[in-house]
């Protein structure tokens, strides 16, 4: 391990024992990663090029499973539904998350700010299973929301809010909201307050200031939040299976079902498609972030 004599701390050549320290410190992390991430992913990729026929795994190289997945309209629907669910959830989270972050930022009283912050962020501590269950109760035909709609707003019959895409989106937006609010809020707190004051002093109204100064400068936070939300929503499993009622068939559920049916090649291909979608999202949002920082 010949280290060039340019290490900033000790320019002189160090004894081997000293030079090994950084490697030894980082080695355990890489060992765990190798055991439960790298090797499993290699096996996963390998299963994706096998095929599964009449209940038997055929371990010969073939792209048949990929071909099946990418040409069958059934799987097209699944991919389309996954992306649509993630997209709607992301838009809803941004529409609720941005004003909420703005309110959290603009609140003057410190105690009110702390309470609002606690309310927004503490649901992270509660299990997704519990929160999804809460939404099934809240959105049920005989639940509080339909009671309100029928009793107060005199709707003729309950609206189907649960066991369909609507319920899944409402619940997922709730689950991911803190992850959207946090990056937006943190770019807002880093915003130089003199910029807004300068704009106001130069005669810009609130709307112009917001449109020309605040919003463009907090856009990186919004993009980052939306990216986190979209990737998390792509991989959401618990909420679609509890609130989808079997009608919202998305990739994570397909992967789970295929694994349970011991059709591992199909599960692997589904997983790789999901991973590809997540990576494309990250690439697009990084490109957007680069533009917005210029």
């Amino acid at each position, binding site marked *: 391990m010949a280290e060039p004599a340019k290490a900033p701390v000790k320019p002189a050549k160090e004894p081997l024992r000293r030079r090994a320290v950084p490697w030894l410190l980082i080695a355990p992390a890489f060992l765990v990663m190798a055991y439960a991430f790298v090797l499993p992913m290699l096996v*996963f990729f390998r299963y994706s090029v096998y095929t599964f026929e009449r209940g038997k795994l055929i371990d010969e190289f073939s792209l048949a499973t990929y071909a099946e997945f990418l040409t069958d309209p059934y799987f097209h629907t699944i991919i389309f539904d996954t992306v649509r669910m993630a997209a709607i959830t992301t838009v809803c989270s941004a529409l609720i998350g941005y004003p909420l972050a703005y309110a959290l930022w603009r609140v003057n009283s410190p105690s009110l700010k702390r309470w609002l912050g606690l309310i927004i962020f503490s649901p992270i*501590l509660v*299990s997704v299973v519990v929160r999804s269950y809460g939404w099934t109760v809240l959105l049920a035909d005989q639940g509080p929301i339909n009671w309100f709609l029928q009793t107060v707003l005199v709707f003729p019959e309950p609206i189907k809010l649960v066991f369909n895409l609507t319920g899944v989106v409402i619940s997922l937006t709730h689950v991911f909201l803190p992850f959207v609010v946090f990056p937006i809020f943190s770019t807002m707190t880093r915003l130089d307050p003199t910029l807004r004051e300068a704009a106001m002093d130069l005669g810009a109204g609130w709307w112009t200031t917001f449109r020309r100064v605040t919003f463009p400068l907090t856009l990186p936070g919004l993009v980052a939040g939306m990216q986190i939300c979209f990737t998390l929503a792509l991989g959401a499993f618990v909420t679609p299976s509890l609130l989808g009622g079997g009608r919202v068939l998305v990739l994570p559920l397909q992967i789970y079902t295929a694994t349970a049916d011991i059709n591992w090649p199909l599960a692997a291909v589904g997983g790789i498609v999901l991973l590809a979608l997540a990576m494309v999202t990250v690439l697009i949002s990084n490109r957007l972030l680069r533009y917005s920082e210029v």
Partner: protein
Amino acid sequence: MATRRLPHYRHLLLGAFAVFGAFYVIAPLAIVVLNSFSSVAYSVFPPEGFSPRWYINLFDQEAFYLAALRSVILALAATAVAMIVGTMAAYSIVRYRRRWADLAKAALLSPIVLPNIVLGVAVFMFFIRIGMYGTYFSLVATHVVVVLPFVTAVLTAALANYDWTLQEAAMDLGAGPVRTFFRITMPQISISMVVSALFAFVTSFDQVETTLFLVRAGDNTLPIEMFLYLQKWQDPTIAALSSVLIAFALMIVAVLSIFLRNKELPANLLRQDKETSS
């Protein structure tokens, strides 16, 4: 310009939206607590009556106790391993700044992009292949992988802001590297350590997507047990259990807000993690 004025309609609008947001966030948790005291097995609003029967039913369900105990032990083990391994890695990356440091950090953060369900299926296949399926070792290792990126991101950010002259001063005064770390460096990054340990614990405790594939039928963790129960029944026993979990979450919030009362949370907790994924 007028110095004093009534709240502008804009502020009222924003306030109203904040109230709506808070309501939206709290509603599903509040309804769970309300439902847990229901006197009937189906959920109906307004409630038809109140009784503690679901709590009594919950206390008879031994499966949930055991599952909760398993979840706590598993989350503690995964958090402990992730904190030790993650702190060492972050220290190595920030302190020594070798040429491979950026690459190593990117590699350690890479599982962030991977949906947990994909990781779950992948480790399931791998562990079956090598005959390590169903072992505790494999389960803990998987949970460590799930939480390690976050721990590493937060701790590298904290160590990057840490004033390393303090460390050099301590070493010059004769303290060994280990003693320096525990006595000088660690207290300086304690908030980040508490936050990342808490996040790791909660993530591991609530983990469904990976655990689902790794536990045998009799060894379910609490969220798995609840998930499977909900797929069969929807009675308020699960509401009672959820209320107990919400009470625990509130306790954590209370303890944390006392602990962090006089401390400024670093606003750039997650910033590093975005930068590196680019």
